[in-house]
């Protein structure tokens, strides 16, 4: 069953453009050096709006924890139940985290603490989303 399709907006368009080019680009504050995800209009640490730039980051992370969605509310995902929803921290800055369905890992089998690497999944023609695959 296909996943739900993100709709880019003015703020997020550069992010999704990068994803569609199979890159992970996060906001980086040139004033305080903090990476920021999801994108915001200003740096949430120092408040700078002018200092935000897009920066490609290395797609490496770790599985912090995971749940299994057994009775969610999203119509489009119900046929997928049960499925993993993991929390992945970015190695480059572990205070930045992402969700992942851990493609290739059976529900209930998420390896907590395992290393993961960036991958991409097509959710609509021309629209990718970022995902994370366990490193064997």
């Amino acid at each position, binding site marked *: 069953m296909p996943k739900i399709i993100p709709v880019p907006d003015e703020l997020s368009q550069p992010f999704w453009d990068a994803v569609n080019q199979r890159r992970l680009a996060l906001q980086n504050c040139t004033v305080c050096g903090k990476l920021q995800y999801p994108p915001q209009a200003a740096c949430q640490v120092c408040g700078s709006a002018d200092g935000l730039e897009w920066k490609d980051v290395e797609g490496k992370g770790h599985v912090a924890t995971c*749940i299994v969605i057994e009775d969610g509310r999203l119509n489009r995902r119900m046929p997928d139940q049960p499925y993993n929803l993991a929390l992945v921290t970015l190695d480059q800055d572990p205070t930045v985290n992402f969700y992942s369905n851990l493609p290739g890992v059976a529900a209930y089998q998420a390896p907590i603490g395992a290393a993961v690497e960036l991958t991409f999944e097509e959710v609509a023609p021309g629209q990718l989303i970022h995902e994370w695959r366990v490193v064997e």
Partner: protein
Amino acid sequence: MTSSNDFRWRRDTDGLGVWEHRGKVAIAGYGHSPVDRRWDGVNLDASLGAYTIMACEKAMEQAGVTIDQVDGIVCCDSHIAGGSGGSASNWAPRPYFDAPYDSEYGITLINAQWLIGAMGFKNVKFAPTGVPTIGEMVGMASQAVGDGVCNTCLVIYPTGNLEGRYRRGGENADDYARGARQWTVPWGNHGGNDFINIFPHNQYCLKYGGEHDDLAPFVINQHKNGMLTPWGFNYNHDIEPISVEDYKSSRYILNPLRIWDCDRPVNASAAYLFTTAERAQDMKSQPVYVLNHSQHNFRFRTTQPDLDEVEMWTDKQAARMYEGAGLGPADVDIFNPYDGYSIMTQFFLEGFQWHGVKRGDAFAFYSGDISVKGPHPFSSSGGNLGNGRTRTAMYTDSIEQLRGTAGDRQVAVKAETALCAFTTPSSGGWLMLGKYPS
């Protein structure tokens, strides 16, 4: 008329010192409607509007206040599935009825303007719009009375629920994720405090040891307390108590979150009568005094809050509340934190260090005697888990415990201060009440 936008009422930053109106504002009455699982869409005597009128009348009657004496109405105009529920929470459109039920107001939404018309209030000078949930409303009303914006203020929290599965329509039925949902929904997170708190809860179990089902004694105790609460859902609907086995064999929603970790949406309303401590002395029922109110709205630093953030947020909440009340953890007799999902309550218990519980101690505390007749009567209200998703049990129980009118639920320990809340780790508010003004 004064609105919420033109007076500063929030106490939502660090270092504000003792509240300037400490002990000078009181709650003089409360009223609850019946608590139904759902409104049937037909019986207007059991509509959210009718139930709200009933709750207001009871609160005024208990305080001995007439309708003409009420000069403030603080009413949350978002129904229980609203706010964070977004378009998935909308039950409209529908066929409407004769006035005052000729729009969504009175049916699934209530606001001050609708109440003024339906009940005939004539002297209301403070009826703000855009009122937040009850966790913050009680602070707004306390500050309004303390500042003299109004003198006799009804605080009303309606919680509507209709037929049909909760939050299954609207954007949750959409194939596309817009706005903030683009960062969560593609992976299955439709939002809500179940998702927000289950990840930190898992991290909690990993960090401190223990497992999810160590919540069982707490959840079971909430149900027990709910069966002692005459104005709650469980008491009035003969809900069977649950055992450890029932809990451990119950179905998962967001594994490891079980159905019994979730509160039950209901159709109900509650009202509270706030006034000055001075006026409350002459009213019909024993007042309880507001010793402080505080609010918080912490921003997520990334997609999903983690345990470090949640612990930092709840530490801050405790520091603000204790500072404003001029009290510390050892001074709090009654502790009624929010339990709308059982997985978040340990963060409050440990942040506020009630009965000396520190980080990582909650599961051991839950396994001890937390009954209302024991030495640690934790969450004596039964909370949402024991009473339904009214989000008011914590407040009413606190009032009753301080008055000594909690009946079979009355604690055996001293009950002179009470801390109560509807809040999540990231947003909401706390209220400290006292049996005495100082």
